[in-house]
């Protein structure tokens, strides 16, 4: 045990809090804005304790005005601050889509590089808590479509901390997508203020030779569990890759893996149409055309608004069995899963 405690274990939530605290201590210009992040301590308690340490000037409770909160962040960033805006869930970011896309993402280009928008917009996504059709969706695909944005989707405590620190130091607007179901999950987090995780570098969560499984956001964890099952029950050695950031995307690491396994499954929680999986499947099918022994398989959330009722919610987003079945399918093992040519 002692040996393993060299690295402290933190919850994903605590790792995010630590990243915010360290960056606020390091850089006076970093400030936080969001609904109930201060006195209430944050809807998911990520900012708990920060008001006490940094005061109302730097930890600002806002009215419920998503579009304007983000826009205030854009203006403050243009004027030299490093605002980190929390939106309570990604679903509410749709109210701020104008400031995120038409302003934050495009100002640097529109003004020929004369202005910068070093803004971070943090928000959680994901199903599993029966929050129903207005609170449960995974919308990373909407953001990765937009040039000018960086998009991060950390799946572990270590990546949550390292990527958030990088995001705050980045000169570009960053959409930082957390996952509600991961907040309570513990993981080892390397100590040290300057342990950043670079954007654009995928994490190979598990090495393997038979099939490449790419998992997005929380689905990186699901993919890892599926890989264990594949090894234990099917003797299949899967490589699991978590891109960690969708913009920039570390396609090289994914392609290198697919070139050795010749098979690929992409797992995402969001909707299938025009999703992250579609984007990756297109890129992989284009880039590794001659290396693929089977079509890239996608396992995605169901193409429905997220229902409240537990049994419906359960089947509306992917779990290990679907990932296992998809992986076996690329290997021609198990029942072919309908449709297809």
């Amino acid at each position, binding site marked *: 045990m002692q040996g393993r405690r060299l690295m402290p274990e933190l919850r994903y939530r605590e790792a995010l809090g630590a990243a915010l605290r360290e960056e606020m201590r390091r850089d006076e210009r970093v400030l936080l804005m969001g*609904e*109930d992040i201060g*006195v*209430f*301590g944050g*809807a998911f308690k990520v900012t708990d304790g920060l008001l006490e340490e940094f005061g109302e000037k730097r930890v600002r*409770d*806002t*009215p*419920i*005005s998503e*579009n*304007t909160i983000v826009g205030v962040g854009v203006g403050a960033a243009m004027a030299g601050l490093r605002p980190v805006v929390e939106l309570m869930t990604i*679903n*509410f970011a749709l*109210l701020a889509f104008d400031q995120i896309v038409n302003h934050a993402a495009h100002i640097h280009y529109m003004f020929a590089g004369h202005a910068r928008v070093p803004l971070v917009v943090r928000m959680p996504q994901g199903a599993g*808590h*029966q*929050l*129903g*059709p*207005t*609170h449960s969706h995974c919308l990373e695909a909407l953001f990765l479509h937009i040039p000018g944005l960086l998009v991060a989707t950390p799946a572990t405590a270590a990546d949550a901390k390292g990527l958030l620190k990088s995001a705050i130091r980045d000169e570009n607007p960053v959409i930082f997508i957390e996952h509600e179901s991961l907040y309570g999950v513990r993981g080892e987090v390397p100590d040290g203020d300057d342990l950043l995780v670079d954007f654009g570098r995928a994490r190979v969560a598990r090495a393997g030779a038979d099939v490449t499984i790419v998992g997005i956001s929380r689905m990186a964890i699901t993919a890892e569990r599926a890989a264990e099952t594949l090894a234990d029950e099917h003797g299949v050695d899967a490589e699991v890759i978590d891109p960690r950031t969708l913009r920039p995307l570390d396609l090289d690491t994914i392609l290198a893996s697919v070139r050795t396994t010749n098979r690929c499954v992409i797992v995402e929680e969001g909707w*299938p*149409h025009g999703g992250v*999986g579609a984007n990756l499947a297109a890129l992989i099918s284009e880039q590794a055309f001659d290396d693929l022994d089977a*079509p890239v*398989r*996608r*396992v*995605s959330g*169901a*193409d*429905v*608004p997220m*229902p*409240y*009722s*537990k*049994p*419906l919610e*359960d*089947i*509306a987003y*992917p*779990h290990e*069995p*679907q990932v296992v*079945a*998809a992986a076996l*399918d690329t290997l021609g093992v198990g029942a072919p*899963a*309908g*449709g*297809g040519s």
Partner: protein
Amino acid sequence: MGSAQEPTGDLLEPTGGLPEPDVAREWLQTMTLIRRFEERAGEMYARAKVGGFLHLSIGEEATIVGSARALREHDYLISTYRSHGHALVRGTPPENVMAELFGRVDGCSGGRGGSMHMFDIGRRFMGGYGIVGGNLPIAAGLALASDYEGSEDITLCVFGDGASNQGTFGETLNIAALWKLPVVFMVTNNQFGMGTSLQRHSAVTDLQRKGESLGVPGVRCDGMDVLDTYAVLCEAIARVREERRPLLVEAVTYRFRGHSMADPEQYRSKEEVARWRERDPIPAFGERLIRAGVIDEDERRRIDEEAIARVDGAVEFADASPFPAPETLYDDVYVLGEGSSGWYSVRTTDPVQDASEGPPPSDRFSQADGRDEIPQQMSDALAHGEDGA
């Protein structure tokens, strides 16, 4: 629903400020039912019978009954994620509201919406909405339809103090005033938006005035007093119905419980909560009725016991109601059949029949959703769902 006769403030005259005995009794019954219902919902949440977020209106019942009873049956009511009471006051059986909380097929939203998304179009309750401020534009649209069709209906749009900071507030009030839409905007000022107090989220705290410079005059009512709420809303609704232009009503009240079930409430003092609890609208109105001789202690007890019994029945009913079948997952994403265009309109939407063709979504949705991920999903989904259910 409320008395068939036209609701008017005058109703309050006959018995010195009180309505007709039957009406008064029904108000007390309904406020008590909402209270007991939500207390029990809280217990069911603790027992994991209810999932997601559960926002209770405990303490705010007078704003619900006082306002809804000032409506005609045909008027529209639209609310937020804190809307169990709004469904109940409109006449949705507690059984179906509880079944919604339980996520069952007999829920008023078929188990699809849960606590935050109640709905009963048959009773002109046009829904609870999970997006703060999201219901305001929709309310204006309902009122526009009433005018368009030349009906006398008005729309009562209920939202919170925190929602008044959302962009839709300014946009909708301006359009409603400009287009002379018959909407009563009722801001339920319970002093907090989640953990942020009114003074900390709104520059103007006299909320009845917050619509003035947008063209919507306002009034205030005591949201802890069902009589005052009813009287003020009757007048406001009558004016809106007649003058065909919007009004804003601020109902001053207080939320006795946390914002949702998971709320440590560090943002307010026990004392403050206690002070407001002294003004609990239900005992207050009960005593008022006893003092006026409309009911006696026994009847008050009976009313409470009836409410508790009704809620017991609702829990039993909800527990007995089945969960939605996995193969219904893809139902009602789209309206299929009559009136909808394209190939999918000629497909049946009967899941059973489709299921027999199994897997239905790959059939019904193949072209819209691609050929592999959906069948994949669904076949696994079904498997998963069955041992999950």
